[in-house]
């Protein structure tokens, strides 16, 4: 696989200059996502306007590899302003793309997130890209903590 497919400029850029990075004091949804195998750890904080079921604002903090950090950064951009339902659809589609169950061609919701399609060819890195998304899912569901290993393993159903 061409290395540039995985480490595309856009991923490297988000790794270097993550968007929506930091704390969100007014957030009403929080979750901590952790991959104990590599130490990647992110907190997702979102402000959901409950009347409208819409993600008004979202920020992330934490640390990890380039893939996970860029995934978190781009995720915040893509779900900001969306309804919770639309965000959940995107979470599911992103997960399916990363596990090779969804062909990103012809999908108009994933847009720039398609740069992560190459990660599907490196199974050992799929958890890196998906960690922020599962953390967001947990936050939206009111769950406070997830881990890529153990009882809250989001891949356990695979």
């Amino acid at each position, binding site marked *: 696989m061409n290395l540039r497919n995985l*480490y595309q400029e856009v991923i490297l850029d988000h790794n270097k200059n993550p968007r929506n990075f930091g704390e969100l004091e007014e957030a009403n949804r929080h979750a901590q996502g952790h991959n104990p195998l590599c130490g990647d750890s992110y907190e997702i904080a979102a402000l959901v306007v409950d009347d409208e079921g819409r993600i008004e604002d979202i920020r992330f903090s934490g640390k990890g*590899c380039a893939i996970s950090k860029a995934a978190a950064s781009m995720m915040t951009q893509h779900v900001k302003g969306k309804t919770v339902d639309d965000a959940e659809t995107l979470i599911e589609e992103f997960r399916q793309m990363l596990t090779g169950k969804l062909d990103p061609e012809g999908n108009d919701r994933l847009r720039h997130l398609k740069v992560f399609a190459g990660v599907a060819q490196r199974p050992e*890195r799929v958890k890196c890209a998906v960690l922020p998304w599962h953390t967001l899912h947990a936050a939206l569901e009111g769950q406070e903590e997830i881990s890529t290993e153990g009882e809250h393993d989001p891949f356990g159903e695979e």
Partner: protein
Amino acid sequence: MTLNELEQAVAEPRTHADRSDWTWEQIRAEFPVLRQSIDGHPLSYLDNAASSQMPQEVIDRLTWYQSAEHSNVHRGVHTLSQKATDAYEKAREKVARFINAPDSAQCIFTRGATEGVNLVMHGWGRKFVEEGDEIIVTALEHHANIVPWQMLCEEKGATLKVIPMTDAGELVVDELPTLLSDKTKMVCVSHVSNALGTVNPVEDIIEQAHAHGVPVLVDGCQAVPHMKVDVQALDADFYVFSGHKMCGPTGIGILYGKRELLEAMNPFMGGGDMIRTVTFEKTEYAPIPHKFEAGTPSILAVVGLGAAIDYLESIGMDRIARREAELLEYATQRIEELDFIRILGTAPNKASVISFEVLGVHPHDVGTILDTEGVAIRAGHHCAQPVMDRLGVPATARASLAFYNNKDDVDALIGALQTVKDIFG
């Protein structure tokens, strides 16, 4: 087919007893797994501390055992059972000779070093450790030499104490006298750190512990493949290691123990082969080593381990140690030329392990990029999270060399690290 033709269909493999004058390239050529490319790049396998590769002679020995000698051990009256038992027990004698154990009965076959530590924890620890006792481990241990002792401490109400380490990755052995007390029941130390490569002063630790009458368990996983180990010269009470890190198969390891300790221990598992007599009222256990080898063992892996020992000895452990020291020196020097890399673990006495970080790049990104250039390294916490915590990093990249590596492998690593730098800028 005639009987004669049948017998020739599987031929006993040729072996070489002496490779002391072979070139390293001749030796490298005996490892079929290394003759492949990854993404169009020749494979540079630098993950030997995780698992080493197997030479053709060991592979052939496994095939021959399975083709011509396999049956169950220690029970049949037929020819094959005798062949299998011979191959199995001969391997035990090779192990004993290899580590200079006084008697092969003191070499217990386990699934690996982890099982060896657990066997001692269950058989010795659960019998002799009581509430208020203390177990000493070190800051450099692999999880396999921490977690079983933690489990024991939790069960018994005992306390785990830790010999600290310096920023360079060396144990502060001067602290040991303050840790040792009449409550200390065992000291557990790795001979060589898997995460950083530090060769620990186990002789000194053993001497200090023995002065207090405390036995010492040594995790020798990263030592046995790379240097001549003499368990009697060390005066180790227990010494564990794994076959797959020394050109042998997975699923086989050794627990060496002093006879009086092994005899005083409870069995680890009950079952067939570990008994002398069984009635519903009482079971009398078999003498060592069989007391600790319940059930049908991994005979194939044992035979493979024996062949791996023959192979290593045909080269010579001293020659292997010299070769790896040369490769380590070359690799360390080349990596030190790169100003974007920091080596973690800089003890003067190291085995051929280089843990490092590429500044500003997560080790998993480093590992992935290196892989696309055919360079296999390990990225992660190396099952030594306390070491990572102590150094303040979540993980490291680790290149670990074996005697069959060469300068080209090191150069490929350097080239691929340059690519990491180019990509991340």
